[in-house]
């Protein structure tokens, strides 16, 4: 490492001179630089190749397809902005899906984010030996989400009097007949939100835990010298600035997750759900691509969704980006 660093320093001053000659030279210089840092590129390559194949190409292809009529079985047909026009002007269900998604994202996004941060912080206060145990306990729901959903939550919210919640309420005398939790339009979204929050301590949470344990303990001593006394002050003045990168990472994950919610909704309320109470953009998209074979239109929805996510992502970068 050290040797490479010295090399870097010794050659760098020579580079700017070459740069201004011509494009070919410039390209050559770039290739040269890449070759010189081949080790780093090699290390990035596995992820980068996967990223190109599984994320970038589909993203580009999908953006392109959104201007076509494409039903998979026949060749695509150019339709210009027709898909977008229908999406914004005609598709009443998209509005419903949009509002449901927003409702979900606005509540689950921040709540779950704060939960992740504070649970990670709480766990950081516990003795070192117990930490992994706590982490496992809180992380488990995210791991076992799918299975637990049917084993635990659907039983709790079962519509008959044998469902746990109904049974408890009946026993307490609060209701006289079982509530149809998963059919009643007003309850569906709140139930989905509760279940999502329960299983939301996922990767973001882990990154926070890692971030907290990476904070240099000397900083606490330094802070103490500077007059910080309470744990809360430590959080504000040491922990938050120190875990900025993790906060950014978790925020991006959170935004993507919240906007692309879908599976959990159809698992709880079914698809189509009663009066589309649980219809989200993702489900709407799946509906068009899977059931109606309108992949072009589905792509347009996907593009809109991507733009929404990117926009919110920008905000997150603004908030947690390179300042700290």
């Amino acid at each position, binding site marked *: 490492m050290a040797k490479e660093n010295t090399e870097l320093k010794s050659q760098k001053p020579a580079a700017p001179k070459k740069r201004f000659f011509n494009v070919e030279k410039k390209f050559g210089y770039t290739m040269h630089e890449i070759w010189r840092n081949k080790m780093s590129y090699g290390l990035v390559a596995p992820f980068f190749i996967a990223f190109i194949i599984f994320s970038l190409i589909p993203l580009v292809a999908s953006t392109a397809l959104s201007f076509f*009529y494409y*039903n*998979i*079985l*026949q*060749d695509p047909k150019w339709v210009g902005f027709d898909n977008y026009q229908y999406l914004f002007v005609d598709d009443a269900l998209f509005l419903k899906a949009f509002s449901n998604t927003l409702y979900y994202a606005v509540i689950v996004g921040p709540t779950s984010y704060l939960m992740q941060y504070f649970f990670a912080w709480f766990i950081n206060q516990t003795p070192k030996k117990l930490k992994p145990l706590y982490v496992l306990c809180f992380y488990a729901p995210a791991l076992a989400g799918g299975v637990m959903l049917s084993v635990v939550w659907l039983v709790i919210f079962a*519509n*008959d*009097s*044998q469902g746990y919640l109904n049974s408890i309420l*009946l*026993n307490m*005398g609060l209701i*006289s*007949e*079982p509530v*149809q939790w998963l*059919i009643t339009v007003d309850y569906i979204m709140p139930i989905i939100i509760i279940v999502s929050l329960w299983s939301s301590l996922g990767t973001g949470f882990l990154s926070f835990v890692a971030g907290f344990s990476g904070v240099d303990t000397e900083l606490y001593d330094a802070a103490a010298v500077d007059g910080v006394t309470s744990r809360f002050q430590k959080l504000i003045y040491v922990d938050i600035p120190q875990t900025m990168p993790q906060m950014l990472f978790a925020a991006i994950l959170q935004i993507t997750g919240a906007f692309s919610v879908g599976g959990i909704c159809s698992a709880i309320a079914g698809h*189509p759900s*009663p*009066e*589309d109470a649980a219809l989200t953009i993702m489900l709407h998209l799946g509906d068009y691509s899977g*059931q*109606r*074979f*309108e992949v072009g239109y589905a792509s347009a929805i996907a593009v809109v969704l991507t733009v929404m996510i990117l926009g919110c992502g920008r905000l997150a970068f603004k908030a947690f980006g390179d300042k700290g």
Partner: protein
Amino acid sequence: MNRKRNKMFRILIIATLAILVVTVLAVFSIQSEDKNAQFSVGENTDILQFSPYIENETRLDNSLLEYGKVLSKYQTAGYEDYDGEDIVLAGNSFASVEGTISAFTEDFVDEDSSSVVKADSAAVITEGTVTLNYQFTVPKTGLYSLKLDFFMPKQKMTEALLSVTLNGKKPFLESSLIELGRLYEQYDIGNLDDMGNEIKCKQREYFDWQSKLLGNAEGFYRNPYKILLQEGKTQTLTLTFSRQNVCIKSISLVAPLNTPTYEEYKNSIDAKEYDGDVLPRVEVEQSITSKTDMGITMAWDENYCSSPASYGDIDYNIFGGTRWSEGGQAISFETVDIPEDGWYQLSFRYQSPSADIVAFREIKIDGEVPFKEVEEYCFTAANSWVCESLKDEHQNPYMFYLTKGKHEITMTVKLGPFRQVAQTLKETSEFLSGLLKKIVQVTGSARNSDGSYTVDKNRDWDLQLYIPSIKKDVKTCRDALYQCYDRIVELNGNVIPYYASSVKVAADLFDNLSEDIEDVPAAINDINTYMSNIEESIVNMKIQGLTLDYMNIGKNGEEYPDAVSSFWQNIYVSAVRFGRSFTTDYASIGVVNEDSTKDMPEITVYASFGREQFEMLRNLVTEDFTAKHNIKVNLTMVAGAEGLIMMRYVAGTAPDASITFGSGSVVEYAMRGALYPLDTLPGYMDYVNDEDSQFIPACFTGVHYKGHYYGLPETMGCSLMFYRTDVMDELGIDVNKLDTWNDVYDILPILQENDMDFCYSFSVGGYWPILFQHGGDLWDKNGKTSALDTQEAYDAYLEFTNMYIKYKIPYACNFYQRFRNGDIPIGISNLGLYSQLKVAAPEILGKWNMRTLPGHIDPETGEVRRDSGGAGAQTVIIDKVRGEAEKDTSRFDHPSESILNSWEFLQWWMSTDTQAAFAQQVEIAYGVASRWGTANKYALATEPYTDEEMDVIQEQLKWLHEAHSVPGGYYEERYMLHALNKTVLQGENPRANLEDAIKETNKEMKRKQEEFGIGEHDSVIWAEWKD
């Protein structure tokens, strides 16, 4: 000091751990040694105790009592077994007869199995339901067994039902449910496929005279039935045969079996014990001579010690398993050559297919049970392979006397001493059902939609005032259940079987309740649940599977250490299998004669079947289709043909044809140009138009798009009205009069007065039949708009929603479960329920029936319209031409060779012979549980439904009515679901809800029509616009 303490501490921990490990190992080794020790099952006779819930049950007439109880009465009265000569009544010596019979004059020859049954002048052949009366006198008052000499002529592969009455009365309750079964054999054993794997042997029915002592068909009783005959008087014995034709040679009154005990058996023969070399094994799966059920088949096991070894190439090496678990199922196999007369020990290498379940088997040698102890021999539970000799409870092997030469061993599934437990549990469950009704009458609890009761826990009832016996009843229940539980555990070798826990839980509940009678009304839901759990336990208790590998015949005390594989052998097997997984092409297992088809034209066909069904299909294709038509078929097993074909289609590697293609997808694919219009192919339109076509016209509706047909029907089903005959009789309802929905509405008050209900699916699929019956349809004539805006559709909508609003039939119900309980004794379901009831609800066997759907009177013809849907999967040909060339319709005049070959294949597959053969093979392998619902009506007629069932199904199929598939049509179903939910669950205005659905549907349809360029005057369904 500190370090020393640390060291001490460490040593302590290590020591504790070591002790723990040793203890665990010791416990395990003791257990495994003890596990297969034979235990005493205690008293085991056919006599059943009288029900603890019925006072003075003995006074009841014999025809209402179970055989075991009647036997108990005989015993008390001191009747003795007859022991004289057989009294033989020839088949044609009957005094009178009802129904059609014929004489057996010509030899019966079956070419398939080359069996010949010699004609017998004394025999009669029944046809349909036949009642024969025989008159005779007996020399001595006593108990007689009945022996029937008969053979089953070739017909559907099910058993015949025999009902016996004596002097016009049933001698005991079960006498009307005696079954006469068929015989099956295996052939073509040991053939190999191209890769060296064994191909499963074939099997067929064979025909021969059977001589049978009439007994319980389910193996419930240990010995054949005995009936009491009085001397002097003329006795009339009435035999009623139904379901299948039977050829009866004679019926004899014989002395009941008197099998010696082992002691007597051992002393009765003077011979020496065999002391020679180890004899070769009897490979059971290869030596089967006869079996009563084709479902009991060979399988392969990868254990190192299974013989012959099968962890490399597949080599079928075991027999039986879960399929050989129902009472009465018997297998016979031939032993190896016995070198000399003498006493031999018999050992079996076996395993229990379900953990911790013992299995009772009757063991016969050359048709006779040698001694009492093996009339119901208990194979102790073996969770891994063991090789144990048949032995007594002191672990001394039983010795069997075998003469020189080969012998036939017959093993029959028996219930064993569980019969008393099963009986008591059944009585308990029946009693609880009655008690529950009484309690609900007092508390007036309402039913929830799911069948549970709404319980008001804040109210107390003085139950004892209304049901004085309640305290005693609860205690009786508790005692009976605890007794049953203890007996189950005892009989299962002191291991708690999985089904016992629900008995224990129920017993505990009644234990609690017996202390606080006031809690009973609050516990009715629990009682209700436990009741059905107990019934489930009875069913599970009767399932006693056993997997056999081989039998060893040897000298006393001979042991077989090579029967159990060691840890390292297991590791070796795993390694070999792992290694082979890289080289084996699993798709081509079972492929034979790849070389001979090299030069033939090929087609690729997708089929989404399970492995075993797929193998059957492939065998049929190679043996029949390829051989006759010289076309090679590359069959590919897929899960969900449609999705995969879409991907393959885009990639340009689609198959030529697909079977098992979802009918909903056909038009979806067709309108996007992915399917070939089959009506342009020679002969297709004959299937649609011909009077004698093997298909029902309605099956074609769903594949009809723009004047073309895109699929050949493959499967179909139908909805039927199921009802409980016993409950309906009790309520005095004549189900045969329920012709229209109005008739059904008329009986609803009677049902609901008795806390019962009617079940009809609350779903869009439930609305369509009502719509059709009103004369409505989903779309207008040309499939351009929704046709739900008609008066008929609105009437149908009101009628359907009113069933739930006005008549309050439950909109959510577990029909199957509640039908079994009897609290929804009538309802509508598809044929799936038929299989389910046949397989999993033996306790109501014979107590239910099916009928055509109720309908509406057609004002024009005056006929009752019973329309309902039921089209299933389709077979299709893929149109591989894409792009601009697709639009050229003249290419349909000259179909390519692969299209014609595919068409040849589809026609072959849907032909009556192929479908009948396939249906039969599926039935053999899986039983009624997955009966093949072929769309070929002639093939359907060969399936083993009874004649009455078949009549009902055929009648209902005449009313099969399917809607067309149109672009955007799925929206109607979706919005109708919303509409129904709003109208019924939220009580909104039905007309407004329906209008909403129509509006949204029309909007989507219009959008889709634009997408596919369908103009204003283009028909979606027909080639031309229809007015």
